[in-house]
């Protein structure tokens, strides 16, 4: 596999606020990368950099091995982005989809290509092509926006919460069209979504973003403040059911801490441990199968917090894990990192 993107020492600021801090990130050609993280973590900003709509404040973005800048010819029409809220030009559906082709001065078989693009998102050409932008529902508008990207047969398709505000039928059609693009043209996909089940079932790699920092190990567990001081230098996070987590030193002024999945172990019952450990009870809220990695992701609720852990199917059987079951999470205080 060859790298389609390489990001080196990226630092991006809005005014004086650092919104992205990526030392190294590579996205392989033809891969499907899932971007996961809470709202405001930097997912959309990263996508804006990948579409070259903005230039990073510091660092370089290599596209197919060359440093590229906004509006460079090497990326125009090859990389495209579908945003959560579609923006359609104030013209007909046909003209909206033809816009990208017109820019390229590509007049070859336009009607057939627009028909194909519309059919990929489940819209009938005869019915929808003459409609004006304001004659569409939210789901239809998003599908038209998707068709406008698909007609370009892009090398890279970036999707920012593509199905977050559409109905189930539109979501299904958009998802199918996305995967078809990947199969048919070898399109590289980068998808930011809160729909972890879908994302985990299709993506080769999951990147977790929090406070502009990326974790290539996938979804990691965030403990958000407020924190109280404990035993002088340590901090605690109180949960509403009376449990609490002890956090290490160095948290003054910090708003969140992270504990990696690999550092958390689970048990059926509490054990006698020394003071260097956190031990708390959680409930499995949902589980789903990650097809590509043949493992199961489980979301565990700890009152106000939610943790995600991965298990092999064997572990699930052995520990008899299922939604609703209470389990004990154990992790070292020193393994927690302040963010």
């Amino acid at each position, binding site marked *: 596999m060859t790298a389609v993107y390489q990001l080196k020492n990226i630092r991006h600021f809005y005014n004086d606020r650092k919104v992205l801090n990526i030392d190294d990130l590579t996205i392989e050609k033809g891969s499907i990368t899932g971007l996961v993280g809470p709202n405001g973590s930097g997912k959309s900003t990263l996508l804006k950099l990948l579409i070259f709509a903005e230039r990073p404040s510091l660092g370089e973005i290599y596209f197919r091995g060359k440093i590229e800048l906004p509006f460079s010819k090497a990326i125009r*029409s090859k990389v495209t*982005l579908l*945003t959560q809220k579609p923006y359609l030009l104030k013209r007909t559906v046909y003209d909206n989809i033809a816009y990208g082709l017109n820019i390229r001065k590509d007049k070859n078989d336009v009607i057939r290509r627009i028909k194909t693009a519309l059919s990929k998102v489940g819209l009938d050409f005869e019915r929808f092509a003459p409609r004006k932008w304001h004659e569409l529902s939210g789901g239809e508008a998003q599908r038209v926006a998707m068709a406008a990207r698909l007609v370009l047969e892009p090398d890279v398709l970036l999707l920012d919460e593509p199905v977050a505000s559409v109905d189930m039928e539109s979501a299904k059609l958009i998802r199918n069209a996305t995967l078809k693009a990947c199969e048919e043209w070898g399109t590289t996909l980068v998808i930011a979504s809160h729909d972890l089940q879908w994302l985990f079932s299709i993506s080769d790699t999951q990147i977790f973003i929090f406070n502009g920092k990326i974790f290539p190990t996938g979804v990691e567990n965030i403990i958000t403040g407020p924190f109280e001081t404990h035993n002088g230098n340590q901090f605690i996070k109180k949960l509403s059911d009376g449990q609490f987590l002890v956090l290490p030193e160095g948290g003054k002024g910090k708003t969140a801490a992270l504990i990696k999945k690999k550092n958390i172990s689970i048990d059926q019952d509490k054990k006698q441990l020394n003071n260097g450990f956190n031990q708390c009870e959680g409930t499995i809220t949902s589980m789903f199968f990650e097809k590509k990695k043949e493992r199961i992701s489980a979301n565990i609720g700890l009152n106000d917090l939610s943790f995600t852990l991965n298990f092999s199917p064997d572990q699930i059987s052995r520990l008899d894990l299922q939604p609703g079951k209470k389990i004990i999470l154990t992790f070292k205080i020193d393994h927690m990192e302040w963010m």
Partner: protein
Amino acid sequence: MDDIVAGIVKAFELLFSGDESTWTAVLATVKVSTCSMLLSIGAGLPCGFLLGYYEFRGKQHLRTVLDTMLALPTVFIGLVVFAFISNQGPLGDFKLLFSLTGIAIGQTILAFPIVTAITATTIEAVDPLFKLTLVSLGAGKRNIIATCLWEVRYGILAGAVTAYGRVLTEVGISMMVGGNIKWHTRTVTTAIALETGKGEFANGIALGIILITLAFAVNLSLSLLRRQ
């Protein structure tokens, strides 16, 4: 009341009898207002785009100056233009005083801030996703500018109509710079002022109705254009 009724009757008489002095004034009004509108759109559209689209130091101060210019009294513009184009003024050699060109210059100064401010406001109101969408469809800088202007065409049109209304109905510039010379620089508005001064209310009302009809015709044609 009698004067008003007489004015309406007179308006039709003046129009349909082909009264030469009336038609000369109408023609002069249309000429100068069209010319000043073309000039103000030509200059105001790019300035408004730059002001609305780009962020730069001093932008807010520039907007304040522009907004102040929206309230410029026509007599003040007339006075400034008069000072510049009178024989003693720096542009005196061009012999623009008491000419339709002189009035057009003054009316361009009147319309320019209106076109610029409304264009800038319209551009500023464009959805933030607009540029991102166009970039993601492969648009270059020129495509973005052209598409942006096309997207906000109705807003710009509204600005142009507002400016046209102000230009069409102003008296101060036409009177001071044009001098209200019959057959030459008399416009409908200066003619109304003159007729009213002479006590010829019916003539004044007739000319007023003609002016309103002119404004209505312009708005109607723009409205039809918008519907298309």
